[in-house]
């Protein structure tokens, strides 16, 4: 059981987390955040394995991972 | 008052810096200030201080910035071409509001110039020691004793006003030997809460910085700094008057030029000419008020300087050109002789008849 949270308003939508996720569950939203970017998020939390690959590649410390 | 010892100007300055609490010296070899570095290299290791010969003048001034950021007394010394190289760092010191001491034992320029005494860095010191709007405290010793006293003073004022200070000396002052008293006097403690000492995880980080991309904010910082400069100009002007009580002609000169002028004044007085001298000790802040007041009671000024006419501009500005200002100058490492100055005194004395 793992949980990944995105501080979406800090996200610049660069997508490095999307490419890093081994489960391919990180996606960019179609909506925009207060900065005008499409923030990253995870829809299917249950599929998260808590590997923190997404957070490791995030340049903006947007992601917190709990396990 | 401690006993007097016979010392060379450069070495007296170095020892004074140590007595003032300076434990960090960074420099680069250049004539004619080498004695300062050599002295520091001998003394610092024995008092748990740091002497470091940097890879360049540029590195040396930036090492100074590093120590100054931590709130400790620090200095560098060089001669004219080296001071040009330090100019970037001097601007950063001013922009970061950091105290530090820079010693310029001037030599003839421009370019590599020569290695004999000069005062041709007057403009550089008082106007343009780097980019941007700022001032340095500029102190000009005219004796070995003043090399000592003004070094104490420079460290004190630099910390008091959080700005860099410069001792503007020259090859003559540096090499001259005179008996001096090395009495340090009182060292004042100033607020150093801005210094980088590590947060100990107990306070917010301190940041030493000169970057500011918001024009309104950068303007405010400049205006604030100049408010501080106004206080310096009001409270810290230093000068010495010599035989000015009844003078018709007023010589303005600093450093070695003042020493020569004093001899010329004595000779002129013996010949019945009423001449005196105002010797600026602080070149910035410049003794504007006394010169303006003096302009009402003398018929002419003479600027005696080892430069092509730099000090003369400040005299003209301070006196608002109320009276003629004659120039008596030698350059390139040459020093005006007593007779050079005496001739100029006689020329000035002929202006406008009796005052």
């Amino acid at each position, binding site marked *: 059981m793992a949980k990944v949270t995105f501080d979406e308003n800090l996200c610049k939508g660069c997508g490095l987390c999307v490419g890093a996720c081994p489960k391919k569950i990180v996606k960019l939203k179609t909506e925009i955040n207060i900065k005008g970017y499409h923030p990253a998020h995870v829809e299917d939390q249950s599929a998260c394995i808590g590997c923190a690959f997404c957070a490791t*590649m995030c340049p903006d*410390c947007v992601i917190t991972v709990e396990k | 008052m401690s006993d007097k010892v016979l010392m060379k100007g450069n070495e007296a300055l170095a020892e004074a810096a140590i007595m003032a609490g300076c434990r960090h010296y960074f420099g680069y070899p250049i004539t004619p200030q080498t004695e300062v570095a050599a002295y520091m290299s001998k003394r610092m290791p024995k008092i748990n201080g*740091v002497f*470091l010969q940097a890879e360049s003048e540029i590195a040396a001034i930036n*090492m100074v910035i*590093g*120590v100054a950021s*931590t709130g400790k007394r620090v200095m560098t010394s060089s001669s004219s071409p080296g001071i040009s190289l330090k100019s970037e760092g001097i601007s950063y010191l001013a922009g970061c509001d950091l105290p530090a001491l820079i010693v310029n034992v001037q030599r003839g320029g421009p370019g590599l110039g020569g290695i004999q005494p000069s005062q041709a860095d007057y403009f550089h010191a008082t106007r343009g020691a780097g980019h941007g709007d700022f001032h340095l405290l500029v102190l000009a010793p005219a004796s070995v004793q003043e090399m000592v006293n003004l070094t104490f003073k420079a460290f004190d004022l630099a910390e008091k006003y959080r700005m860099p200070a410069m001792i503007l000396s020259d090859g003559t002052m540096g090499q001259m030997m005179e008996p001096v008293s090395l009495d340090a006097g009182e060292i004042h403690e100033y607020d150093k809460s801005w210094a980088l000492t590590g947060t100990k995880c107990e306070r917010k*980080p301190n940041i030493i*910085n000169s970057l500011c991309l918001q024009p309104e904010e950068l303007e405010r910082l400049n205006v604030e700094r100049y408010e501080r400069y106004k206080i310096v100009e009001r409270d810290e002007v230093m000068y010495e008057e010599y035989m000015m009580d009844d003078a018709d002609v007023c010589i303005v000169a600093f450093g070695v030029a003042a020493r020569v002028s004093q001899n010329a004044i004595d000779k002129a007085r013996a010949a019945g000419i009423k001449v005196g001298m105002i010797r600026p000790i602080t070149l910035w802040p410049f003794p504007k008020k006394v010169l303006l007041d003096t302009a009402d009671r003398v018929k002419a000024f003479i600027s005696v300087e080892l430069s092509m006419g730099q000090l003369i501009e400040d005299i003209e500005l301070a006196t608002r050109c109320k009276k003629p200002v004659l120039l008596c100058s030698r350059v390139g490492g040459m020093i005006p002789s007593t007779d050079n100055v005496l001739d100029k005194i006689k020329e000035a004395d002929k202006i406008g008849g009796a005052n």
Partner: protein
Amino acid sequence: MATVFSKPEALTDAPLHYCPGCTHGIIHRLVAEAIDELGVRGRTIGVASVGCSVFTYNYFNCDMVQAAHGRAPAVATGVKRSDPNNIVFTYQGDGDLAAIGTAETVHSAARGENITVIFVNNAIYGMTGGQMAPTTLPGQVTQTSPYGRDVNTVGYPVKVCEMLSKVDGATYLERVAVNNVKNVRAAKAAIKKAFQNQIEGKGFSLIEVLSTCPTNWGMTPDKALGWLEENMIPYYPLGVYKDKYAESEVK
């Protein structure tokens, strides 16, 4: 549930100003993690440089001084010599460290200054809009090498780790990259070691981090990671270039 990944304490809450996907942010985090894990934040003093990383003084949650272009190692020398108990690091880009500040870099290494240098190599001047850097690759197009870097007229890139490996005073030199998770983890270990060396008084450590500049390279952040791997790593091989305290010589 326990937190397995969150923002380190040695970073402030200020949002980073870097372009989307710029890996400066990852490197900032790695430095901050190292500071936290070694428990030295309260006695760490950072030296910011000039370039994209000029604002690092807003991001690291420790005392900071902002140095003139290229002068960070000299400023760090002063800070460290003032109080050798403090942990002093510089964070510099390639233009700052390998062009205008080459002398300061080489001589701080030669003196064996007990400092940690984080050298971010993204093969371009980012802050000023993508000009040719001392580390720009042969043939690489930049704003000031519009026909590609011609080594016959402007010479070759400077390989900092290789150059400094011949400097006796240097203690630890390693080149790492932040283009994938595995390399980021290796970069973290290298950066931590560079700080650990300083804590142990071992002398000058420099970690060269190959980084991306999606904006000035003109590609998406994802493509930039690929470009780094395909173009930069072959020219700037990863690895330890010097470890004075290693048991055996590392080639």
